[in-house]
């Protein structure tokens, strides 16, 4: 398949899953019992006030009509309005746009940390296979997978903010304040990637072409860093990209721990206030980011490795 057709096909499939995601999000919030009007209107609302809110939210229409309205908001880019006063308050899209950069910065820094720490660890463990270093790295990676990150976040804060005072605490948004939350986001992914790097490197190191490279007299350094690493790193980078979604949902917890503005923080606040349009918008945007990153990873992989395009 030529690369153009591959990209078009991949984008088409991505659009299809976005449509599915929209339907799913819509169904959750409309079929599951619970009345959003009750919450917005408060206890002593008159029937007229309730009717006004219902009209504003489009809840007086049929289910298909409501879905059409919802998709209309997706297409016109507002992602919905906040009732009962749509003019006086920002659109859902505007609220999300305000905090989106914070979450992206957190997720990307976390992803960066994970890759930068995982690769050397995994490579070193593969090169020293079977030694105490390898065992130690495995134990470290397993602990990283097992430790709940809602504990890791507060513990990091306790050490580096309360006890040592090296890094800024909750509620700050500068570059230095990014370090702890990004690290907390990174740990789980880092552990996974280190394990993958190790196994991928071990596999590649046993390949025939490396024996050839050694046999023709190349220095071990060149064999490892040029011939082996390049091939070993491919699956790791793919997984790193595909795990972006888990980093995004990890950010929800970390933003709560560090009181950082972001999509997760907005989502949780909206859930507490039962502000359904904002909940819907946040879920949709996080899922859309995830789908887009997956497409980008697939396309990049297709460009690098033509074999992928055949499927």
């Amino acid at each position, binding site marked *: 398949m030529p690369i153009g057709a591959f990209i078009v096909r991949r984008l088409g*499939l991505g659009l299809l899953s976005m449509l*599915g*995601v929209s339907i*799913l999000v819509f169904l959750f919030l409309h079929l599951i019992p619970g009345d959003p009007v009750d919450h917005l209107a408060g206890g002593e609302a008159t029937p007229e006030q309730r009717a006004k809110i219902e009209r504003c939210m489009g809840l007086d229409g049929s289910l298909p009509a409501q879905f059409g309205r919802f998709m209309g908001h997706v297409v016109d880019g507002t992602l919905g309005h906040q009732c009962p006063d749509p003019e006086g308050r920002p659109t859902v899209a505007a609220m999300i746009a305000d905090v989106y950069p914070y979450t992206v910065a957190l997720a990307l820094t976390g992803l960066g940390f994970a890759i930068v720490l995982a690769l050397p660890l995994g490579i070193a463990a593969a090169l020293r296979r079977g030694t105490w270093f390898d065992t130690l790295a495995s134990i470290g990676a397993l602990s990283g997978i097992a430790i*709940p990150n809602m504990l890791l976040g507060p*513990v990091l804060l306790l050490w580096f903010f309360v006890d040592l005072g090296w890094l800024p605490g909750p509620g700050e948004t500068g570059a230095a304040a990014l370090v702890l939350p990004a690290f907390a986001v990174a740990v789980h992914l880092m552990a996974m990637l280190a394990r993958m790097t190790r196994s991928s490197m071990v596999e590649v190191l046993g390949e025939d072409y490396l024996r050839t490279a050694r046999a023709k007299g190349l220095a071990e350094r060149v064999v490892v860093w040029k011939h082996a690493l390049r091939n070993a790193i491919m699956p790791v980078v793919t997984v790193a990209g595909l795990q972006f979604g*888990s980093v995004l949902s990890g950010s929800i917890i970390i933003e709560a721990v560090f009181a950082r503005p972001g999509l997760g923080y907005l989502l*949780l606040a909206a859930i507490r206030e039962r502000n359904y349009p904002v909940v819907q918008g946040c879920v949709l945007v996080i899922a859309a980011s995830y789908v887009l990153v997956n497409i980008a990873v697939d396309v990049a992989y297709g460009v690098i490795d033509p074999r992928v395009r055949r499927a």
Partner: protein
Amino acid sequence: MMTWQPGRWSPSVWIGATMLVVFVVLGVFGPLIAPYPVGDLALDLDHMFAPRSAAHWLGTDKSGIDTLSQLLWGARKALVLSVTVVSISAVIGVTIGMVAGYARGVVDEVIMRVVDVFLAFPGLLLNIAIVAAVAKPGLPVFIAALCANGWVGYARVARGQVLSLRERDYVLAARALGASTPRILARHIAPNLVAPLLVQMSLSFGAVIAAEASLSFLGLGPQVDHTWGAMLEQGTSFLWKPGFRHYALAAAGAIAWVILAANLLGDGLRDRLDPRQRGRG
């Protein structure tokens, strides 16, 4: 193709299985050996935040309830929750996956597109979205939320296996002899799914515990007292309190224990079943 190979089990399997057995035994018998009662009736305001002592090995919490007893009751709740979620997810997922893999064609295509949609959601986000949609989420809602994305993994594994199993000679022979489709699926194909599904079940055991902890931490938990997630939530919010750090660590340790056990066992089983996948992910 994943099949059982003869040979030794790796230490990873043994350690993971042993840790898991400890968890299951504590989950079943823990409440019986718990030194103190838990719950609203156990409220003891004279002994709030008690330090570790002979009477309370791990101290007490903000309500004066014994920490060790909470951990043991929490084990029961974690066990019930994970067994329920894993069983429901497995039954739904395997059924859907087998249908897709056996029917192929349009049915398969439609089911796999639906699976893609669920995969387009980061798992935790889907759980949050469902729990958040319900005004007063109880335990059933919570279980449903965890199953909503839990079935997907089983469906993929089952479909992949069935796609290749259905072309095996013995299946073709059964069909030629006039066996009905349900009979072929139940008698000839399903037994071969057991091994790969054990891997998936083991791995998702830990995932359920982790998800419960995450949701409880965010205040979206199953609204049941003394789950490990709820303990971790209380522990981290009082982490600043001197002498109370061990409470959060105890809850986190219990959670990490199960996740570690599930991963060790799952990875070990997978290596045994499919050596090519060794150490992946």
